[in-house]
């Protein structure tokens, strides 16, 4: 891909430098035409305007979250609305720090999300590898069966899972949450990883086999390391799914194993009013771990999600 977006280092009659008479070779430049470095002012202004609008679209809600968390409760709905809090206060954050129950919700969220991510990656890696690299009777049917579970409304599955977990005394346990979250993350993770494994040449596997590597050795020492970006992407997806879930956590977890989303709603949204500053402060704090994880792993995430999307 990079070859098509870079200008050649040596000037030729067709390059811009030769047309303006400059004989000095220019360093390679990326995306000269139509990109942010375009020399045409109109294009540059339009490009920057687009970036600013898109950035504002993404960042304004986050700013509003922060601003509301710093606003006293009686000024949250002040009219006309203020872009900057008139009397900023950290009361909402102090209130959070004093609420021990929220730390319990946080602990539960971390436990459930991490186990869901690990379990999803573990299972979907082997399933994806099997679907990608082996041929056996029923393979395609199995692949679509995995996908079929995504076709049902979650509410329908919730009632069914509730009954099943109830019958096996699994309600109000981490196990119930992890199993239910994994149920939803597996199909996408499996298909995502299958696409990733498809891009790993069979010749590589054949070469390892010729060198005497066993099947397990091939998977663990050759294929999985190469698929690390895909595994990380799948793991992040599963983690976020577990971190954000509301309905299943509310229904299956019980008071002791409650995770953050239902915990925050239960704590800050009442019958008649909502504690907006506290809710926004809590939302801000609990989104930090996910944001940090995304920032740290974004290059893997993008690579993992797009792997297998291009044929060839």
């Amino acid at each position: 891909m990079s070859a098509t977006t870079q200008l050649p280092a040596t000037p030729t009659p067709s390059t811009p430098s030769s047309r303006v008479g400059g004989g000095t070779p220019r360093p390679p430049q990326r995306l000269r035409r139509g990109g942010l470095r375009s020399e045409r002012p109109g294009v540059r202004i339009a490009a920057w305007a687009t970036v600013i609008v898109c950035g504002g679209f993404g960042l304004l809600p986050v700013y509003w979250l922060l601003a509301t968390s710093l606003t006293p409760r009686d000024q949250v709905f002040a009219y006309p609305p203020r872009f900057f809090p008139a009397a900023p206060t950290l009361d909402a954050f102090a209130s959070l720090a004093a609420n021990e129950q929220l730390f319990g919700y946080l602990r539960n969220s971390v436990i459930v999300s991490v186990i869901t991510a690990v379990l999803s990656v573990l299972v979907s890696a082997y399933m994806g590898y099997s679907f990608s690299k082996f041929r056996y009777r029923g393979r395609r049917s199995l692949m679509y069966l995995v996908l079929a579970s995504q076709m049902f409304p979650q509410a329908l599955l919730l009632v069914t899972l509730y009954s099943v977990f109830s019958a096996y005394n699994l309600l109000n346990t981490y196990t119930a949450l992890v199993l239910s979250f994994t149920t939803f993350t597996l199909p996408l993770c499996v298909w995502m990883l299958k696409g990733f494994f498809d891009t790993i040449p069979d010749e590589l596997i054949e070469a390892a086999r010729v060198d005497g590597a066993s099947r397990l050795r091939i998977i663990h020492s050759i294929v999985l390391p190469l698929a690390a970006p895909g595994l990380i992407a799948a793991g992040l997806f599963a983690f976020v799914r577990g971190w954000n879930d509301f309905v299943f956590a509310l229904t299956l977890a019980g008071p002791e194993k409650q995770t953050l989303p239902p915990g925050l709603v239960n704590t800050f949204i009442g019958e008649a009013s909502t504690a907006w500053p506290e809710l926004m402060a809590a939302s801000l704090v609990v989104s930090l771990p996910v944001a940090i994880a995304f920032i740290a792993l974004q290059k893997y995430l993008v690579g993992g999600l797009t792997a297998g999307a291009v044929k060839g």
Partner: protein
Amino acid sequence: MSTNPLMQSAVSRRRMLQLLGIGAGTAALAACAPSAPAASGGAASAAATGGARTDFAFSSWSFTEEAAAPALEAIVKAYEDHADVTVNDVSFPYNEYINQLTLQVKGGQFTGAAHVDVAWLGSLAAMGKLQDLSALTEGRGYTDAALAAAQFDGVQYGLPWTIGAIGLVTNSALLEKVGVSGDAFPTTIDEFEKTLKDLKGLGGGLIPYAASTKAAQLKDILIWMETFGSPLVDGDTVTIGDDASVEAVTWYKSLYDQKLIAADVDRFDARSLFAQGRAAIYDDAPVGRGAVTEESPDKDLGSKLVPVSRPVLKAGDTPRALVWGGAIAVVDGEGAATAADFAQFATSDLDTVLADYEVRGLPPVTTEAQQSEVVSSDVFGSLFNERITATSSSNPFWAFTAYSQIETEIAEQVQAVLVGKTDPKTAMQQAGEAAQKLIG
């Protein structure tokens, strides 16, 4: 072994049919999954209060609410000391509460005492797991109106706890600016509309009446339909679509067009607008008082809150209001007898009720509590009871388990009228037909 690129797995029509087959098969399997035990034939008639007391669960949406939780914790603590048992609290957010409670009760996961909105009693009673608590009402001083609010189909499925109504709440300071003070609030709809126009004339972006206009809360229109003379339901026949309901919606639409009511307002929006002094009148239950005073920059707003009777179509008519409130129901099963005893204690023990009132400010249900100094000295509470709750009535759709869907059908049609997509007559006819289908 060969690679199998994902692109080779394009879904063909044949494959799609196979998928649908698999989906149907899985749905069938889901249907075969273990289900909740069948509901018993009817509610148990004896709510035992004697015998050994046992631990039980008590569910309420208020356990985690900042303002209400201390009151509930105090009640639970008082009962635990009184009865020497442990009460296990269970809580779900208000908006999810009825769904979660229904699931837990159906699945046999929950037994004991449950805080319920009186609107939900019909749906919960239909499961056949609520006890008939009528034996526990005798000699406790419950008012007849409160007992009636916690009944369904003539059976006392709940003990009333905090029964009031939804009515008009005004900002007296704003009304005084247009010459409406004290008891001089308009009594007829024509006078009411004139007052709204006067309030509009004050300018400054004031919304005269923050009536509900979002579909989620447009069920408030039902009380105006009753005010215009529609019974809503006659036996099992829905009457929406009659002249009175059409007139009510036509009038509501005219308020909307004159900007006397605002677009996109639900109960939460109305409270915020009212708290900020941007609305002069709105509909609410007593529970809203704490929310508006807490959210308001006007620290004196509490003293300006005045509940008023809803205007009537013509002088002499009885003002209409919708019953609102909470009850404690008892789900049959382990600990139910003690839970019933707790329900009676929490709702009628004078000291407990008065201590609760001082924290939550919600209307008590026994004559003794209502006449107590603590309650009668609360001007807002007394006026609310006298002007609104006294003439309130239940929503007739609560008698049907599909009441929520019925209200949604009506609300969507009314909203279509407000935004000009249809006319009141057509909309109300369609709403009535849809509601009738849901009733069966």
